[in-house]
């Protein structure tokens, strides 16, 4: 292929009011405006969204799943960060 490649964009959709945007896939488009239109056509044909974000795929910075132990292990031992770590007498009631 000697044609120029069309950039890839990641698509995020807010499905309902009060919900966060959620990743749902990707589209190819020459620019942001066309990426938004393509994302609408591909991912919201049945009213799945109230709002769309598109982000150039090349701009996403991701953690390395291979290094997930080093990345996330430190919180594994910090059980005192959870409410159930603390004992409250029953007489006090719900807390």
């Amino acid at each position: 292929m000697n044609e120029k490649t069309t950039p890839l964009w990641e698509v995020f959709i807010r499905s309902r009011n009060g919900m966060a945007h959620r990743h749902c896939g990707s589209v190819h488009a020459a620019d942001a405006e066309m990426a938004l239109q393509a994302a609408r056509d591909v991912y919201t044909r049945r009213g799945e969204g109230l709002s769309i974000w598109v982000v150039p795929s090349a701009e996403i910075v991701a953690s390395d799943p291979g290094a997930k132990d080093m990345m996330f292990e430190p919180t594994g031992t910090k059980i005192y960060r959870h409410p159930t770590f603390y004992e409250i007498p029953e007489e006090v009631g719900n807390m």
Partner: protein
Amino acid sequence: MYTQALNNLEAVTDVEDAGRNAAFQARVDNEYKIEPNDWMPEGYRKTLVRQISQHAHSEIVGMLPEGNWITRAPTLKRKAALLAKVQDEGGHGLYLYSAAETLGASREELNEQLLSGKAKYSSIFNYPTLTWADIGAIGWLVDGAAIMNQIPLCRCSFGPYSRAMIRICKEESFHQRQGYELLLTMCKSSQEQKDMVQDALNRWWWPSLMMFGPSDKDSQHSAQSMAWKIKRFSNDELRQKFVDATVPQAHYLGLTIPDEDLKFDEETGHWEYGEIDWSEFARVLKGDGPCNRQRMKARRKAHEDGAWVREAALAHAEKKKARKAQKAA
């Protein structure tokens, strides 16, 4: 709509780090989803790129036989439904390309493989749509068979493929129902229309059974796909499920399945069907079906005719970017 990719996989010969392979298999065995950046055996990656892209190609080529009838739909309601269905097929192709691209394949590369004939697509789309009843038959039988195949793929071990399949399955149900309803309407109408539906069933029945791929005794490489949890049921298991579900639906329409050997086995509770003509299947896969050349020609023409649009869009994007940079400076 469906993948026939599993028919011709290369044997997997991994000489990679046995430890990593074992850890990978353990994750799969425990029903963990594998994500794009996770380590995976090269064979797993290759198998998935091939299967997902061939599945995507099938969706895209699958737009052609139905697109044939959009301008000739009998009512506005049927036209709107068919248009929506064909748009869905295009959308399904795009969800799947998007999943394949997470494995490092580029869209241009995948598209090139389809246009050059290197990549396969489902054999079913090489049959012609001769009458309006064929549109109903495709929805009922072809999408019905696709659903049988795709539901287990929702639990595929590769995250992006499994998520794409969940979306697709949700939309596919509309396809099957509109097809069956269309046929029901025709069957309740004149004898002439009912005959047209029977004729469509006669032509689509066997090719639909072939969609499940070769019989288990001839299907190589299934074991590896099963172990990797890409595939969950064998070709014959899925084909049997399809026959069991579809025969009573045909009877409800008052139609006859074009198979003299078809009979209900009281003991097993399954419909037994006759021998499939595997030579026809091989012929169509090899490129000698009724419409193979026509389908490829249409795809190539669409790609070539769209070249100036892709070029212009990129040029416009560059110009806009340059203008913005100039303004900022």
